[in-house]
């Protein structure tokens, strides 16, 4: 080694203290192969070395939780002999490099986590975040990511039923691609990734191993993306959804036939990760026969074989007597399969080679010519990976939330002055973040498998469970603009909103999975954001009584010079006992009562209105009262169960006006509301303070609904009636008035008055316009590839 060359461990992304810790665990110096294995396993992505102490604080237990944090996916029992498995994961950095393949392999990876547990994947949701939609690079990323999600999900036959698409400047250099998968499994089919039973075979099946993503785990997840070191450019992984489809069928067949002890998918850190984690969970070790691993190309180095992230591969632990049956199943599905090792009592991962001739004999003993290339205690790679107590520092806050109960300040008076509130509503409905997402989700097969009751487009996804009266309800939510101001609030808010989206269908939230997208944890401010985010996540889940069953942490989401706003992405699954009681968010008829539950709180910071109208520097985001949120959700579930609800929508992005407008657009009928304006028309119409619902009910049910809300201690008022072809909202009784009225010298606020057809038009065309997809050459470059 020349004096100038960096030591190998640093080239692999390991700090000097980490090398010391490795020496400590081995009691000697590691060789190069061992160092490579440590470098991928001790990456942030695999080891959670910065976040593990925080994650321990999360509430993870619940009566129905069958498998939780620590497993490949969370599993919750839902009765009828069934359970639901679900998990969310990020593929941010690969998608920034190669959007199509990055997103596609993201879908593939999260599906494997779910079917590795024995669950048939029944749904995918994708939560996406990008920079300026008018920017050419953003458009390239959006187009590629959406094609990638669809290209993979459509082919494997799992419907993509929901997700998010948000544009914000903070993602300009660093898009987020978070994908959630949901699977359904029968009792008794749950399969854990644990290498039990010394003497058992370690079987690798699926695609052959190539040079894909060598070092991807460490390089992509641990280094700030965008530094210009070409040697760190990882090989791009290409997904093969057809191979994945075969892998799904073969895996479920192996499990159904009871042929395997355990299964784990291969993702980051490849074979190294799969064998060390499964062995560590069982307290065993594995002799790995390097020669036996099927390769796609000649000339792979041992370290490349051990850490390759080639896609569409699984490892099964198999009793020797079942090997022939396992092989037959894999061959029927046309998948390469090989015994690549043996489980041992000695808890070490040992990598052996006989120079290609096969290092283990048929009894699993090393042949005479076998050489030992690496020997590492499994736990040193997995559960006893290094942990860092990172420094945390609260930055000088930009803005604070107004104290609860503080008087409503008309901070919005300026932006709204002189504006017809109807024009503001149209602008919001047509804005990049609030307009219809159909140009994206129509590229996803959303109904394959014949379970989709509520397809993407209108709130939470609903999937019926065949053979039962039940349905699963799923959503993702993540609020970054609020979190940028107050990361605790942003995370708690995201949980509240996700759970609310489930509750307003009548379903009971079962559990939460989460993807924590944050910046460089070695920056104390970024680590503080992460710590506050985890605290908010835990507080909200405890308050709402929903366990966290799994998740994923994505750090270093920083382009040179900028970090993303902290983005805690929440994935949630709920259970609806009787799908016939399902309530949607579209008005169901004319002359029905419109009831408003909850009340507006001050604060426009972090809202879409603020994005449109500009920020008021003294403003903060509205407060969130978790206890009130819990009561609100309990109320709406009870109201729905009692048949009191025609339709229901929560107040979120764009505020009350947008919520009602959506109900009108989707229901094909207008509405007339009289709204107490308080001091601020903008807060009343467009504020996004949480814990509020718009409920449509038959006039004769309105009193019962109001009574029920009061029972739950919630402010409630009947504010209007459905019907007609226009949306009219009269603002009553406030000091502040909308600009148009002021200019006429009037003291009574103007009515918002817009034809529903205009609302629909703005909403339907906004996204295509924002992305330039309405141009005739749209998507040409990507499409032509």
């Amino acid at each position, binding site marked *: 080694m020349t004096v100038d060359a960096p030591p190998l461990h640093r080239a692999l992304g390991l700090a000097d203290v980490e090398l010391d810790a490795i020496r400590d665990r081995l009691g000697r110096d590691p060789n190069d192969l061992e160092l490579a294995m440590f470098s991928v396993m001790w990456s942030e992505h695999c080891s959670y070395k910065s976040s593990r102490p925080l994650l321990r604080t999360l509430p993870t237990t619940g009566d129905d939780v069958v498998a939780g944090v620590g497993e490949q996916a969370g599993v919750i029992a839902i009765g009828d002999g069934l359970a639901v498995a679900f998990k969310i994961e990020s593929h941010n950095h690969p998608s920034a490099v190669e959007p199509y393949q990055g997103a596609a392999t993201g879908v593939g990876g999260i599906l494997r986590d779910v079917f590795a547990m024995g669950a048939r994947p029944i749904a995918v949701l994708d939560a996406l975040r990008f920079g300026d939609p008018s920017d050419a690079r953003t458009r390239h990323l959006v187009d590629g990511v959406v*094609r990638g999600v*669809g*290209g993979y999900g*459509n*082919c*494997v*036959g799992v419907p993509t039923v929901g997700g998010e698409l948000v544009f914000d400047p903070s993602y300009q250099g660093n898009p987020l691609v978070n994908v959630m998968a949901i699977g359904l499994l029968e009792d008794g089919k749950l399969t854990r990734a644990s290498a039990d039973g010394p003497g058992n075979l370690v079987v690798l099946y699926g695609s052959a191993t190539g040079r894909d993503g060598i070092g991807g785990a460490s390089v992509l997840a641990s280094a700030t993306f965008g530094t210009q070191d070409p040697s760190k450019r990882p090989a791009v992984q290409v997904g*093969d*959804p*057809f*191979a994945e*489809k*075969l892998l799904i069928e073969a895996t479920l067949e192996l499990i159904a036939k009871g042929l395997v002890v355990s299964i784990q998918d291969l993702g980051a850190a490849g074979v190294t990760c799969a064998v060390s984690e499964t062995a560590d969970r069982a307290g065993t070790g594995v002799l790995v026969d390097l020669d036996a691993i099927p390769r796609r190309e000649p000339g792979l180095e041992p370290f490349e074989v051990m850490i390759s992230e080639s896609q569409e591969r699984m490892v099964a632990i198999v009793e020797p007597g079942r090997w022939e049956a396992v092989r037959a199943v894999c061959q029927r*599905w*046309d998948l390469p399969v090989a015994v690549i090792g043996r489980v041992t009592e000695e808890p070490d991962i040992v990598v052996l080679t006989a120079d290609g001739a096969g290092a283990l004999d048929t009894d699993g003993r090393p042949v005479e010519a076998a050489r030992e290339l690496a020997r590492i205690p499994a736990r040193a790679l997995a559960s006893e990976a290094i942990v860092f107590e990172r420094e945390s520092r609260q930055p000088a806050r930009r803005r604070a939330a107004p104290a609860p109960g503080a008087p409503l300040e008309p901070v919005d008076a300026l932006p709204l002055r002189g504006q017809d509130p109807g024009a503001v509503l149209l602008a919001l409905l047509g804005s990049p973040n609030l307009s219809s997402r*159909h140009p994206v*989700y*129509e*590229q*996803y*097969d*959303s*109904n*394959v*498998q*014949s379970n*989709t*009751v509520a*397809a993407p487009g209108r709130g939470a996804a609903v999937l*019926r469970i*065949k053979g039962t009266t039940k349905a699963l309800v799923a959503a993702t939510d993540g609020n970054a603009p609020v979190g940028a101001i107050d990361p605790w609030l942003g995370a708690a808010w995201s949980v509240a909103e996700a759970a609310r989206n489930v509750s307003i269908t009548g379903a009971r939230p079962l559990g939460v999975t989460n993807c924590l997208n944050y910046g460089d944890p070695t920056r104390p401010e970024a680590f503080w954001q992460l710590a506050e985010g985890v605290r908010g996540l835990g507080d909200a889940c405890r308050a709402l009584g929903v366990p966290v069953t799994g998740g994923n942490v994505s750090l270093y989401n920083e382009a040179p010079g900028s970090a993303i706003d902290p983005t805690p992405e929440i994935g949630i699954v709920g259970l609806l006992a009787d*799908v016939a009681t399902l309530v949607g968010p579209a008005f169901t008829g004319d002359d029905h009562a419109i009831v408003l539950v909850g009340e507006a709180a001050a604060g426009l910071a972090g809202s879409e209105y603020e994005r449109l109208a500009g920020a008021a520097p003294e403003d903060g985001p509205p407060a969130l009262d978790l206890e009130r949120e819990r009561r609100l959700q309990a109320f709406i579930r009870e109201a729905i169960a009692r048949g009191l609800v025609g339709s229901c929508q929560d107040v979120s992005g764009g505020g009350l006006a947008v919520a009602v407008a959506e109900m009108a657009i989707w229901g094909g009928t207008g509405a007339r509301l009289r709204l107490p304006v308080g001091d601020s028309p903008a807060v009343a119409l467009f504020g996004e303070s949480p814990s509020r619902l718009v409920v449509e009910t038959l006039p004769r049910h309105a009193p019962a609904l109001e009574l029920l809300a009061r029972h739950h201690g919630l402010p409630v008022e009947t504010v209007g009636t459905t019907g007609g072809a226009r949306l009219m909202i009269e603002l009553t009784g406030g000091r502040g008035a909308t600009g148009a009225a002021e200019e006429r010298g009037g003291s009574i606020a103007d009515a918002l008055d817009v034809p529903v057809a205009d609302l629909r038009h703005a909403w339907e065309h906004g996204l295509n316009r924002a992305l330039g997809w309405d141009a005739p050459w749209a*998507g*040409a470059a990507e*499409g*032509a590839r």
Partner: protein
Amino acid sequence: MSVRVGVVLFPGSNRDIDAINGLTVAGAEPVILWHEQADLDGVSAILLPGGFAYGDYLRAGVIARFSPVMRSVAAFAGRGGPVLGICNGFQVLAEAGLVPGALLRNRGLRFVCRQVSLRAEHLDTPFTRELAGAGPLRMPVAHGEGCYFADDATLDALEADGRVLWRYVGEDGEVAAPDERANPNGSLRGIAGVRNAAGNVAGLMPHPETAVESILGSDDGLGILRSLVVSAREYAQTGELSGVRAAAAVAAS
């Protein structure tokens, strides 16, 4: 006694779940036909389901066409048995030459999944006989290569011969031109489905099998599946189908 209808399973088929569900709702007993099997297990009709057989790599449907089961499907079709290909199944039938035309990449170059409206052009065929009327029938499409193509002469002949079975229509009930949103893929003359000269083999891009229960958004597809089931029963009992032409007549045409 319920009639046995085969559902061909290629590696990469994924609407087999939907086909089985749809056939069950329509009153048939679905029977899986694995791509490597030549024996048809005594089925009286065959449904080729949607999906991505062999990943749809190279060209949708092309690799599947060479499966052992396809030789048997072709022979079954030759004997006058009813065969319906849906989406990828339509692509496989077209590649195999069992129905006319080709399915090109969608004109918009994107995968399209949404509800469309169809009009049935003939109500006296093995695939439409149970429909209450011409439509419109609401059901989803979900495909990237569904743009129906044949040269003008072929199209004229298909129309003259009554072999265009379904077309995409707009809200006004009129056939949707290739550049209208109601035509999801740019198909020529709004063609969503066709049948062979004898009339016993049909393919369509939309998914009637996913539109068989109102909880799924529509049950308009049920009429098409019921037609197939009724045809299967007729074929099982008589060895013939009404609404089709004898092979001799086809050869003469």
